[in-house]
């Protein structure tokens, strides 16, 4: 472990960190603008050109708001809870490759914070830890709507995690590796969306449910639960939950790109630009879904996860396994 390696890692961590902190306000702006136009409104337009600085203004407002902790809340857990989903989102982002290996000062630097050989498992593990932020936030508030929201979302996330993991396993069977960097490299000729279309559909549905986004945003169903698990959170604690939600959208999109859409690979343009283009398209897709579909009912949500997605993912895995075994690839 030499000094150059330490510097290289620190720079990469800072780049990813900065990218998320700058990217999230942009996504929020994009979401408000796109949904505005889809609903025949204009969206934010007063602060800065095209309303671009609106989210910055909102962020500053949240920063200076009073930080309330309910009298009956569990103080330690209440303070800890909003930080957890942010931490797990950053941990998951650390294994997503956003470019090819480049040469900087004579060193081969892979554009990825770290290429662990169990990257896919690492991502599943960190996202499964993300549930704690929501379930603890709901519990620590010591209030009925947050608790209901927290319990709902923990049940939802555990149910959808299974199908999500299994849909990724079918790709792993094809590639024979758990490292995201080599999964990306194996898609030079053919993106895995083609042979594994069903796995992708299952993965992205589960990914939307994992990030608690519409139409699966039961955890914060405002018509029935006030605001769900973050009802009692104000100021920067609320902002952290907000940040985590959008950072997790980036994680889900980043994995979908790396596993099914050839990662950073593409013709003519540099790899990093391709990654950013694909990421933007995915985030637009998220917003598009939110503007299009009404929220599911809770029992529909659970039935869909357990009775449709899980069997479908198992079937897909079985078929993939048979094909891989018969073709004698490995």
């Amino acid at each position, binding site marked *: 472990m030499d000094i150059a390696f330490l510097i290289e890692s620190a720079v990469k961590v800072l780049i990813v960190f900065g990218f998320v902190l700058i990217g999230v306000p942009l996504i929020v702006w994009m979401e408000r603008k796109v949904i505005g136009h889809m609903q025949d409104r204009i969206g934010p337009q007063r602060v800065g050109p095209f309303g671009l600085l609106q989210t910055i203004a909102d962020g500053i407002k949240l920063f200076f708001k009073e930080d309330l902790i309910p009298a009956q809340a569990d103080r330690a857990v209440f303070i800890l809870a909003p930080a957890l989903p942010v931490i797990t989102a950053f941990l998951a982002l650390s294994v997503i490759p956003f470019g090819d290996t480049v040469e900087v000062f004579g060193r081969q630097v892979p554009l990825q914070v770290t290429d662990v050989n169990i990257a896919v498992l690492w991502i599943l593990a960190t996202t*499964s830890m993300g549930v704690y932020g929501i379930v603890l936030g709901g519990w620590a508030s010591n209030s009925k709507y947050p608790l209901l929201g*927290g319990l709902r979302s923990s049940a939802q996330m555990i149910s959808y995690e299974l199908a999500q993991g299994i849909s990724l396993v079918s790709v792993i069977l094809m590639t024979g590796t758990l490292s995201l960097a080599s999964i990306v490299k194996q898609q030079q000729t053919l993106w895995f969306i083609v042979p594994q279309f069903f796995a992708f559909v299952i993965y992205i549905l589960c990914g939307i449910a994992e990030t608690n986004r519409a139409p699966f945003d039961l955890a914060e169903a405002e018509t029935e639960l006030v605001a769900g698990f973050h009802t009692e959170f104000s100021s920067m604690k609320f902002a952290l939950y907000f940040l985590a939600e959008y950072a997790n959208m980036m994680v889900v999109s980043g994995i979908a790109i790396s596993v099914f859409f050839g990662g950073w690979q593409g013709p003519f343009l540099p790899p990093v630009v391709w990654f950013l283009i694909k990421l933007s398209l995915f985030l637009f897709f998220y917003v598009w879904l939110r503007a299009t579909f009404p929220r599911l009912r809770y029992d529909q949500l659970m039935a869909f996860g357990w009775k449709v997605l899980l069997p479908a993912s198992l079937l897909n895995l079985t078929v993939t396994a048979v094909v891989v075994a018969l073709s004698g690839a490995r």
Partner: protein
Amino acid sequence: MTEAVLFALFSVSAIVFAFNVVFRKNPVHCALFLVCVLLSLSGMFILLNAAFIAAIQILIYAGAIMVLFLFVVMLLNVKGETPLLTPGAAKGFGFFFAVIAFAELLWTVLTRGGAEGTPEQAVALPPGFGSPAEIGRVLYTTWLFPFEVTSILLLVAVIGAVVLAKRKFL
């Protein structure tokens, strides 16, 4: 050197968190400290060259089973512990079992410690040790029978839980 520091970090934190699991009054706090113990243990697994086990430890135990634990604790809304034994009896039992466990560990260390050779010899691992492929191969060849029996056991547990939950009377 780095490994020694990390080992000290993970083992000390595991012990401190484990003490908290036992001594905290609030069941939710206990469950959270147990999650921390599991995370420290997964760090130890990585140091032992078993990255797959470490990831599974977080994914299954910390990420799924402990969430369900928390789920139950929250739904039951347990406020503090209700003591099962009188404080004196609890202390007696605790001391008794602690002495047995300590003696057992001491015996293991004393009898097995020197027999395996130096640490350098113990480090020589077969190629691919701890990799997902190797674990899968071993599970489906050498340990196929225990593996299948375990899966049937889990299936029975799942069906049993459904049957009990569906029953109208108890």
